[in-house]
């Protein structure tokens, strides 16, 4: 049997399936949409598909008409449409045929040391601009410059970023840069100041809701009342996460309906609705009862059981981050707690959060959090 790394066999296989592979990206896309995760299937294809980033989209559409582009810096939390937007913009500018020769995408999966970026950008920028085929220009503006996308730029070192300054200037006549990052503070000032900045907001409820409902109806998924709200709540403004949750929730209830329904052997996504509970389950939300049990153990009088409750929660695999979030909500909105205690408790959260981000042991961190809150509640 051929091995996983039998490159020759793979090449042969690739050649056999060539029609679908290298040739036409569009075609591959339509062929494989059936088996694609929904996040990819419903990635916005044009600027107007991008939801909730109205300001950005309007400005970009205007530049599309003017056929000129500044250097750009996109920033914002994960899953808010940054990568999708630049790809859609590039596609609208150059169309499918010129995309390859006019757009260079470098992301964190590429080696991005100083010299490598410089070389790659140089080689790319120096390539002759190919002329669009006749008639093509009426459909796509094809402005006379190339776009270099540096996605996930916050993972580039400071040195690599400063080296980029020169490069940007050297080729500024024929190239435009688009930097994309989650944290704008990780981009050095001299770079950031050369770019028009676009902030991508966490998706607001209204827009996210609409998008999710659209996808659900296209996929034939029924949503119980409140399920969309649960999706949005659990995904915290990250549309990608919300779509992934929706997909697996749909699969789950679809499968349940199928085994229950007996002999329906086609893959039919059934009428069983996605419920709030299914969504919360998938999103890893800790049941309210568990949080209450912890809270009760922490309160004066319930002492002694805190460590066993925590031990159980850790063994049940509840993630520390989720525990923190939910416990925080529970404590802050607990009206029986005096404000002065809440203030003290909040500082404990701050410390423990930092530990966790640094990779400290979750069990000890949560146990300490619980013990400290318990102490504060007891007036110690």
């Amino acid at each position, binding site marked *: 049997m051929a091995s*996983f*790394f039998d490159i020759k066999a793979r090449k042969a296989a690739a050649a056999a399936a060539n029609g679908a592979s290298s040739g036409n990206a569009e075609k591959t896309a339509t062929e494989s949409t059936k088996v694609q995760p929904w996040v990819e299937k419903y990635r916005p294809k044009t600027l107007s598909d991008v939801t909730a980033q109205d300001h950005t989209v309007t400005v970009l559409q205007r530049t599309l008409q003017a056929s000129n582009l500044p250097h750009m810096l996109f920033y914002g*939390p994960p899953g808010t449409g940054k990568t999708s937007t630049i790809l859609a913009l590039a596609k609208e500018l150059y169309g499918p045929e010129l995309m390859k020769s006019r757009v260079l995408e470098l992301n964190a999966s590429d080696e991005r040391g100083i010299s490598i970026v410089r070389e790659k950008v140089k080689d790319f920028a120096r390539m002759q601009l190919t002329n669009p085929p006749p008639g093509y220009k009426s459909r796509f503006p094809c402005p006379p410059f190339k776009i270099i996308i540096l996605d996930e730029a916050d993972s580039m070192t400071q040195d690599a970023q400063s080296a980029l300054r020169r490069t940007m200037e050297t080729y500024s006549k024929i190239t435009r840069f688009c930097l994309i990052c989650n944290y704008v503070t990780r981009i050095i000032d001299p770079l950031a100041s050369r770019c028009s900045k676009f902030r991508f907001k966490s998706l607001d409820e209204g827009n996210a809701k609409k998008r999710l409902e659209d996808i659900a109806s296209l996929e034939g998924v029924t949503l119980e009342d409140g399920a969309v709200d649960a999706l949005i709540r659990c995904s915290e403004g990250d549309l990608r*996460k919300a779509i992934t949750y929706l997909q697996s929730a749909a699969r789950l209830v679809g499968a349940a309906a199928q085994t229950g329904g007996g002999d329906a052997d086609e893959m039919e996504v059934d009428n069983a609705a996605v419920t709030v509970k299914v969504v919360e389950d998938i999103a890893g939300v800790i049941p309210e009862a568990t949080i209450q049990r912890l809270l009760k153990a922490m309160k004066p009088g319930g002492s002694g059981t805190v460590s066993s409750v925590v031990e159980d929660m850790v*063994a049940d695999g509840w993630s520390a981050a989720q525990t923190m979030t939910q416990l925080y909500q529970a404590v802050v909105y607990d009206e029986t707690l005096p404000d002065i205690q809440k203030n003290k408790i909040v500082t404990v959260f701050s410390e423990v959060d930092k530990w966790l981000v640094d990779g400290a042991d979750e069990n*000890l*961190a949560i146990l300490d959090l619980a013990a400290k809150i318990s102490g504060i509640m007891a007036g110690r």
Partner: protein
Amino acid sequence: MALLVDKLRPRSLEELTYHEELSKRLRSLAQCGDFPHLLVYGPSGAGKKTRVVATLKELFGPGVEKIKIDARVFMTSSNRKLEFNIVASVYHMEITPSDVGNYDRVVIQDLLKEVAQTQQVDQAARQKFKVVVINEAENLTRDAQAALRRTMEKYSPNLRLILLANSTSNIIAPIRSRTLLIRVAAPTHDDIRSILAAAAKKEDWPLVEGLNKRIAEESGRNLRKALLMFEAVHAQNEKVTDTTPIPVPDWEVLVGQIAKEITEDRTPARVMQVRAKFYDLLTHCIPASTIIKTLCFKVMPLVDDSLKPGVIHYAAMYEHRIKTGTKAIFHLEAYVLKIMKMVEEYLMSMDM
């Protein structure tokens, strides 16, 4: 002779005993072509890997069980050679990038793209994509995680990732956003007892309920640990009863001794003795985090209730420093000194 843990490992989703709901969910995901990337997390010994392997079988059929080990060499940008082992079948491959420490990014960048850019060899494969399983994902460096981001999106027609981790707090938000999180809870005491009972039956060993109950509790809901203890008890004793002592791993015994010693005698000489024991543990590759955590739990029953919050606090604090610092021994000793001081002060206050 294979250990029980391996011999009795379930091979398919149907054979998995506990967490029926979760098995059902994994099956429903595997049966549709649009399988998402997964991040499977849960405490160690909860059966994450077993579940993932069973899911792979559901995805691709028995072919995934024909595995071989490939040794590969990578070059870093500074021209250092990295040796790296890969476990692979025709359909999937399994890697542990933390084996190469800080160079994990190089491996991720090269390897995943190579996999992603090639087609399935087996044209009749049930899925168009291949799966890469990444062990110990919580140890991936930030750079390596960043390197995964676009790869996970761009190559999704050809590639799915399954990340395995003990906890999710070290996984960056963009990766969490790209995966479906699957929580694998540790089996309950009852789950463990019924698994032990089944094991006893298969091995033709007598069923000793009381002992199995004790093992389940001792194991801290860690199934791997429970099975190892179970096997050891039966191997070391002719006749097994409810009260047969359960063998404890040497290192745990040693940590127990340390706990006892530092609460009994709080002198510089003691610190010296204990230091030797710490070195002993460290040279036997017991992770410093595990040592401090175990020490914390062993000290707790030995001290007054009023000291417990402090014992926990300093364990958490120094464990954090172990993770962010470079020299574990500093922090282990600092912890010991803190405990000694707390106990000493407590005793003084009692005298007055």
